[in-house]
């Protein structure tokens, strides 16, 4: 039993180290804050991106090695997404949030650890993204807004798939335009979303449309 176990772990360590031997490309993800004139102050922004697939015009696909990424913009406006380099890629596809399989798999570790603050403990499920801050336009207590979006069960599945076009072999970064987000939802009318439901669906769609790729000028 023990020997068998050792043998299996030897093989898996071998496979893991092999796949990590190929260098990963770090793609910068930049948070674009709302314009000063909109007087919206962001204190925290975190999101999960998952199931990243890169493909070329022949529909050849490559999966990113670790397929769940928790991006945290609390202390910096940039984060890095590690992808496997893929020649001639022209499409980047990923989910904003985590799918129902992960949501129903019980206690997970690493980036999916429920103690990362991205998990609803009273109603099982991950929080796909959190946007928190203040604005004088916000009528809630202390002018605070809190958007926690998630939900994996029909009909309130808040997962959105994002497709971004790439120019083959040109370096790029990803921007998340929160100015656009606050144009799409008006915080005069909506300032708190804390559970799955129609509002979570609405703000998830809004945030999904705020992702874009920008070619790096050299």
């Amino acid at each position, binding site marked *: *039993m023990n020997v068998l176990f050792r043998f299996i772990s030897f093989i898996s360590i071998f496979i893991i180290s092999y796949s990590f031997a190929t260098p990963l490309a770090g793609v910068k993800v930049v948070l674009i804050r709302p314009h000063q004139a909109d007087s919206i102050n962001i204190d925290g922004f975190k999101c999960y991106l998952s199931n990243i697939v890169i493909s070329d015009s022949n529909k050849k696909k490559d999966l990113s090695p670790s397929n769940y990424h928790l991006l945290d913009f609390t202390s910096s406006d940039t984060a890095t997404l590690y992808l496997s380099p893929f020649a001639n890629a022209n499409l980047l596809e990923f989910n904003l949030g985590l799918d129902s399989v992960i949501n129903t798999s019980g206690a997970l570790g690493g980036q999916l*650890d429920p103690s990362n603050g991205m998990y609803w403990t*009273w109603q099982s499920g991950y929080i796909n993204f959190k946007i928190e801050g203040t604005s004088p336009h916000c009528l809630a207590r202390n002018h605070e807004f809190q958007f926690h979006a998630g939900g994996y069960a029909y009909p309130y599945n808040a997962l959105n798939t994002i497709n971004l076009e790439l120019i083959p072999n040109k370096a790029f970064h990803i921007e998340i335009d929160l100015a656009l987000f606050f144009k799409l939802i008006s915080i005069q009318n909506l300032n708190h979303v804390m559970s799955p439901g129609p509002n979570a669906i609405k703000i998830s769609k809004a945030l999904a449309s705020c992702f874009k790729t920008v070619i790096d000028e050299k």
Partner: protein
Amino acid sequence: MKNKILLLLLSVVFLALISIDKHESSFPKYFPKPVYQFEQNQSNDLKIELGRTLFYDPILSLDNTISCASCHNPYNAFAHVDHNLSHGINDKIGKRNAPVLFNLAWHKSFMWDGAINHLDVQALAPISHPDEMGETMSNVLLKLNRNQIYKQLFYQAYGDSQINTERTLKSISQFLLSLISSNSKYDSMLLGKIQFNTQEQNGYRLFKLHCNFCHKEPLFSDFSFKNNGLSLDTSLNDFGRYSISLLPNDSFKFKVPTLRNVEFSYPYMHDGRFKTLAQVMNHYNSIDLKNKKISTELQRNLNLSSNEKVDIIAFLRTLTDKKFLFNPQHAYPKK
């Protein structure tokens, strides 16, 4: 000689492949296939013992006063007696009655409204609920990591002393999964070891006629959500499954509770409104047929005579599993 060694090796490999999980070999053949995937959380006695220590330890609460067992008493099949609604830290009163804990591997979801989708994440709910244990998982990890006894227990159970969320939660599950109740008089009857007396036999017949749709044998629940005709308690305004699914059809539906050990799991229903089984029988015998929200299985007059009600209760008492209730392996761990 060489052949013999090869044969031995092959049989070792074969045995390793077919060896089933400890929990899986501890329930009778007439139980259905469990929902819990044991291969995702392989058991050993040390993990179960670690889980048991955590279950009885108030270290999981903010002010170190409340343990899981404060609300789930082993001698009452892990339900909360004396209180209809549960009590947490600083005497805060919750809005629901603590259910029994056993045969959890067959549940498709947890809590009266199914808010929790997997046994391994269940403990996060009471730990972080402000009216229950009021703690955060990250602080629990800090406390456990500072504790030499836990360092040792995790080391023994997992081969190194790393304490993280996943291991902590899965160890609690290990203890919960070891709680299997399958040694009642009813079980002995099924196995042909004993026979019911006429009263129990008649109660069993009536039970199959009126109750078995939802409280399905042999686990005495199909773990679905149903409306069994309780009137709304306006001081609680508990809409049950609706608050999770937001589907209007789910309002006032609650998860069908098991009836094993029901003799000891009073008070009854999600809000503990009934103290005795006689009150429960009177409820089912006087369903308000004008209320069309009640699940169809109960949209009829049961017309039970008082003798018949007593017979059903006699049958329900055959579901008591004394061996389970007083099993020292489930009780407070002796230090």
